[in-house]
């Protein structure tokens, strides 16, 4: 085996001999798994996806910094570089080891991803996340390696803390950039500043957003900036390590010090100054979720949902009709509920000729009980609203005690676009007359129901436990063998 190959194998094994290496890996994977499992109760891709694919790869900045700085901090290099080992070979092997750990992290996310794609397919955002996370890992290893090389000392506190600071900056600039772009300020000075984060650059280069609705029209300078950051960081780290440093000492000339300072400035400033900021192109839709624009903009609820024959929940009534009930409705399964129309008619007035039409959207099949719909006007209920929270009547006053039409419905949410947090809109249109007034009055309301893949939480839980259990097993085995 070549020298680099031998060093790679030995350093990889050495990496996992750390006091908390397996235990730490298990804890990290377990934490990610918990987020993935909890994420099945909400929009998995937005919550878990951003954390696992976007933020956690940035943790390889302090990790790489620590891994590179540690052998000099703990003087292991004194043993190593008094053996016939080329410093270049060791650095290459060490970086390859960090890449291997990064690749292992990326692969460790696969079981959870497979559960997701098996249930809901492969949405656009997930495809982009897979590339984004891999790119973020490479960029983080590059930046972390440079940070680790820059610090020579008897403690890894300084490089690790610096790496953590860079991580926070890179992570914090992601929402800031989304905010700036959403406010059409992507090309402002602050907008440019956010491009100092390679994670933001890569997001722009790949042409997706998390929240904002615009992406840059051009990406060439963004890709060049990414090359400058990743290539520059690796090249500078290698050059410093081999040409400007001894085993444990800085050996720089004045010219070298200037060259290092200028190179560091270029790596940071180039993307800020030159990366693309023409946010003129509409961002692609992240997944197949139906557009529910204006659904949440409405104030005052006109709909409620309750279990068959039951009263609606006390904290009634939000736009998400089943928000108070747990678990949410299951996708591809029929759920029977009573849909309550909170009619803006005072209970002192009689209602006649009530006709109701209910329609689901985005794959939601709603089947109202035809007999109940036909005789809805005969089975009206009354409801007393607290503190002016009743629906507004035609003259503007809030109903205190009003009529409620109860319609048993069967809901079947189909074609889920996420494993959890699928919000299917439904619209209700009704017409009626009030006794003593022949005018036809209309009632129009929109709401949504929250649904999820019911078995998703169990499948995700199992998938997210596999690797942590292996890691804890390895930790236990090592503890038993070395105690």
């Amino acid at each position, binding site marked *: 085996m070549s020298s680099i190959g*031998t*060093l790679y*194998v*030995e350093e990889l*094994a*050495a990496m996992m*001999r*750390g*006091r908390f290496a397996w235990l730490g890996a298990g804890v990290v994977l377990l934490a990610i798994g918990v987020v993935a499992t909890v994420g099945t109760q909400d929009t998995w891709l937005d919550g878990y996806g951003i954390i696992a694919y976007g933020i956690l790869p940035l943790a390889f900045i302090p990790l790489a910094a620590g891994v590179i700085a540690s*052998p000099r901090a*703990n*003087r*292991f*290099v*004194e*043993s*190593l*570089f*008094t*053996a*016939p*080992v*080329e410093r270049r070979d060791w650095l290459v092997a060490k970086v390859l080891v960090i890449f291997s750990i990064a690749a292992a992290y990326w692969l460790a996310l696969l079981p959870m991803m497979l559960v997701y794609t098996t249930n809901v397919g492969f949405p656009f955002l997930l495809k982009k996340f897979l590339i984004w996370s891999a790119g973020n890992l490479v960029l983080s290893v590059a930046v972390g390696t440079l940070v680790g090389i820059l610090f020579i000392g008897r403690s890894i506190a300084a490089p690790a803390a610096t790496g953590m600071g860079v991580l926070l900056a890179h992570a914090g600039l992601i929402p800031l950039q989304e905010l700036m772009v959403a406010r059409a300020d992507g090309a402002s000075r602050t907008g440019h500043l956010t491009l100092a984060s390679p994670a933001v650059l890569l997001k722009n280069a790949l042409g997706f957003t998390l929240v904002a609705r615009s992406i840059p029209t051009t990406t060439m300078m963004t890709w060049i900036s990414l090359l400058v950051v990743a290539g520059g960081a690796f090249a500078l780290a290698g050059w410093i390590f081999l040409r400007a440093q*001894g*085993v*444990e*000492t800085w*050996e720089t000339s004045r010219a070298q010090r200037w060259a290092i300072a200028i190179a560091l400035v270029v790596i940071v400033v180039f993307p800020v100054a030159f990366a693309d900021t023409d946010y003129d192109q509409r961002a692609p839709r992240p997944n197949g979720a139906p557009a529910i624009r204006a659904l949440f903009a409405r104030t005052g609820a006109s709909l409620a949902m309750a279990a068959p024959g039951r009263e609606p929940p006390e904290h009634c009534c939000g736009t998400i009709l089943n928000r108070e009930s747990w678990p949410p409705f299951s996708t591809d399964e029929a759920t029977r509920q009573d849909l309550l129309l909170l009619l803006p008619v005072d209970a002192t007035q009689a209602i006649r000729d009530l006709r109701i039409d209910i329609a689901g959207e985005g794959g939601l099949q709603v089947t109202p009980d035809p007999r109940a719909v036909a005789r809805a006007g005969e089975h009206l209920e009354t409801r007393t609203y607290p503190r002016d929270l009743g629906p507004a009547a035609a003259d503007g006053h809030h109903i205190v005690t009003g009529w409620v039409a109860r319609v048993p419905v069967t809901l079947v949410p189909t074609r889920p676009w996420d494993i959890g947090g699928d919000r299917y809109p439904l619209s209700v249109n009704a017409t009626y007359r009030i006794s003593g007034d022949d005018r036809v009055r209309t009632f129009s309301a929109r709401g949504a129901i929250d649904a999820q893949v019911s078995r998703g939480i169990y499948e995700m839980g199992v998938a997210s436990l596999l690797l942590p259990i292996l890691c804890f097993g390895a930790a236990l085995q090592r503890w038993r*063998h*070395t*105690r």
Partner: protein
Amino acid sequence: METYTVSEYAVETEGLTRRFGPFVAVDGISLNIPKGQLFGFLGLNGAGKTTTIRMLTTLLPPSGGTARLWGHDVVREPLAVRRLVGLVSDETSESQSTWTAREYLGYFARVRHLPGAAEVVERSLDDVGLEQHFRGKLIGTYSTGMKRRVEIARALMGNPKVLFLDEPTRGLDLPAKREMWNLLRRLAASEQVTTFLSSHDAQEIRTLCSRISVIARGRIVYDGATSELGADLDAFEERLVGLLLQPA
């Protein structure tokens, strides 16, 4: 089979200098250490002993002068020099406290591409007398003396021609120290390696070494036979203090 440049000396330095900014840590020292000798390098803390060893083992580039080991220049032929040396410093194995002795030595056996690495490891640990049942336990659980044995075993891997020992008995109690001295004597007798023993412990140097150099403020202030400094330890130490504290 490795070949070595023919040279009369194991270690030769001429005007070897190391500066850290304006501070001159080692100031033009010249040494000629014959092969197979147990050589003592004595000085106060901060005198320049460790800096000299770090230059001779390629860990630190000299600011001036030359240094050769078995004829190989430490700057121009660092790999050739590293094949010849073993270094035991006072705390390196502490750094790998989460490794077992077998893992630690196995790492170096494989990195050095030594054939039969597992056997080499066991043999090396046999040589330094580390008991079997400790070899699979974490180095962090060892006593200071055991850690030092592991370091010596690591330094002896690949059969070095020059063994550098930087304060090898620092932190050891008297029995452990005497055990270490016996180990060093045994190694010097059996392995025929040149041993460069750096210490600030006058008794240790006088006990083990037939020839010494004394370094003070980065300069060699004495280079000669140990016996010439005094017939007994008291006289030796008195003369030594005079050398170490003499005005610059």
